[in-house]
């Protein structure tokens, strides 16, 4: 019933739909996510600020006041807390929506039908999560500084390094979040928090510098699989550079490798979930 001529004639159908440039579709997808984030701003702030601020109050205010921490601990803690806010916010703002939209309601479908490559739909999710992670760090920084009081050695003199670390950290954390979001099912969310996120937080060198782990050498190397380690150390290298930290080049290299690796794996898996 079909023939070569039929296939040929189909190509000649006049097309009333000029192609929409991919960047335009990308921005429309992003504006949708920004709209949703604005609507959920109070929840976003609670989610973003709660945990880091509780740690700031206990470890950055109460313990120093009680005399249980040494002078200088706050300089190690502040960048770590920012790293934590950045990572948790980036990761969660993509993981949770992906888990529900793919696994439960299938509502991602209208974006998968948008005239843009499926990979770019996934990349947009990463970019949106990066923006949310960076906003979270910007919100937590003044609050943490306020609670802790003056922090010795804290400086804004390394702006280019800070910029590189923040962007790469947000990218690595967001790509990791997307990977989790397309890997796990709605039933596994609790499991993800207990077995993945919580150990990452505690072994992410957010509350102690990586060099502090010299005292437990095996752990010092085991934690290197944790992306949060490089985010914490990167923020130390750029915000409190006089404190001991990993070499800047190693941090940037690790964040780059993690971003590329997580993005590659997340896109691969996203495609599998999106197209049957």
């Amino acid at each position, binding site marked *: 019933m079909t023939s070569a001529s039929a296939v040929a004639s189909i190509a000649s159908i006049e097309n009333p739909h000029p192609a929409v440039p991919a960047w335009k579709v990308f921005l429309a997808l992003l504006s949708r996510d920004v709209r949703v984030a604005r609507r959920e701003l109070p929840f976003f702030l609670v989610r973003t600020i709660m945990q880091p601020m509780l740690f700031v109050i206990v470890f950055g205010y109460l313990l120093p006041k009680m005399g249980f921490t040494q002078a200088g601990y706050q300089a190690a803690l502040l960048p770590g807390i920012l790293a934590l806010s950045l990572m948790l916010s980036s990761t969660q703002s993509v993981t949770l929506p992906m888990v529900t939209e793919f696994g439960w309601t299938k509502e991602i479908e209208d974006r998968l039908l948008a*005239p843009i490559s499926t990979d770019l739909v996934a990349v947009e999710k990463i970019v949106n999560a990066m923006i949310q992670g960076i906003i979270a760090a910007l919100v937590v920084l003044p609050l943490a500084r306020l609670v802790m009081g003056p922090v010795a050695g804290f400086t804004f003199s390394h702006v280019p390094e800070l910029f590189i670390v923040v962007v790469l950290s947000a990218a690595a954390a967001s790509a990791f979040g997307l990977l989790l979001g397309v890997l796990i099912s709605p039933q596994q969310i609790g499991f993800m928090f207990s077995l993945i996120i919580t150990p990452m937080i505690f072994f992410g060198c957010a509350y102690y510098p990586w060099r502090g782990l010299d005292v437990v050498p095996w752990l010092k190397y085991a934690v290197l699989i944790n992306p949060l380690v490089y985010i914490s150390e990167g923020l130390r290298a750029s915000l409190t550079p006089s404190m001991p930290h990993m070499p800047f080049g190693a941090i940037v290299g690790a964040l780059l490798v993690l971003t590329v690796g997580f993005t590659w794996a997340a896109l691969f898996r996203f495609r599998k979930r999106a197209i049957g």
Partner: protein
Amino acid sequence: MTPAIVTEGLRKVYPGAGRAGPPSAPGAPTPGDTVALDGLDLMVNEGEFFGIIGPNGAGKTTTIGILTTRVLPTGGTASVAGADVVRNSVTVRQRIGVVPQRPNPDRSLDAWENLIYHAAYFGVPRREAARRATELLERLEISGKARLKVDQLSGGQQQRLMIARALIHEPTILFLDEPTVGLDPNARNSLWEILRELHNQGRTIVMTTHYMPEADELSDRIAFIDRGRLLALDTPENLKMQTPDGSLETFFIAKAGRGLDA
């Protein structure tokens, strides 16, 4: 007439859970695999209301999935509105509207935003999108629900919202996958009215159903499919003429060896 859709030898095999080993011959399915489509040839004309009918598991949803670029075929080719569904999937998406089997609105947005953002994904300017959204909500009789979260809409209203969403970027071809499943008779009748109106405007419509009267009522031509193969393709009148009692159901049982509910 110009074809809007052409498929040739369309094949889809879903890998089975228990992969027992390599296939017995090149191209043969591995034991445990599910063959959803087994060489389907279809041609849908421009402006046609095309019904695809078959029991559950016949391959209807897989067919729609491939034609709407959401499922990759294992073999064969398909072009929709002049573009290949695999090589030019972005072009195909630009030209089609899809109403899914179960409403899947964007639950983080209200009904109005569902339409406006969907239009934006297709490059429709905001003011034009607002004009079309107003008109569509009006025509689908859900304009009073525009500012409600989609969870507050009934099943029938959500289904209408899906139709509005599928139309807001003015697609050349509209796909509907079992659009009346789960709707009460009133909601179904009013959906039929809407579909007739869209068809009268000259739009190409492809609809799957396993509800015989629906296909009979609306379609210009009906494709009967079962086990991934085309059993028959003709106008409802011609198909009915081939059975002594003039019923599509009887025709299907004669062809497939089982009923639609089997």
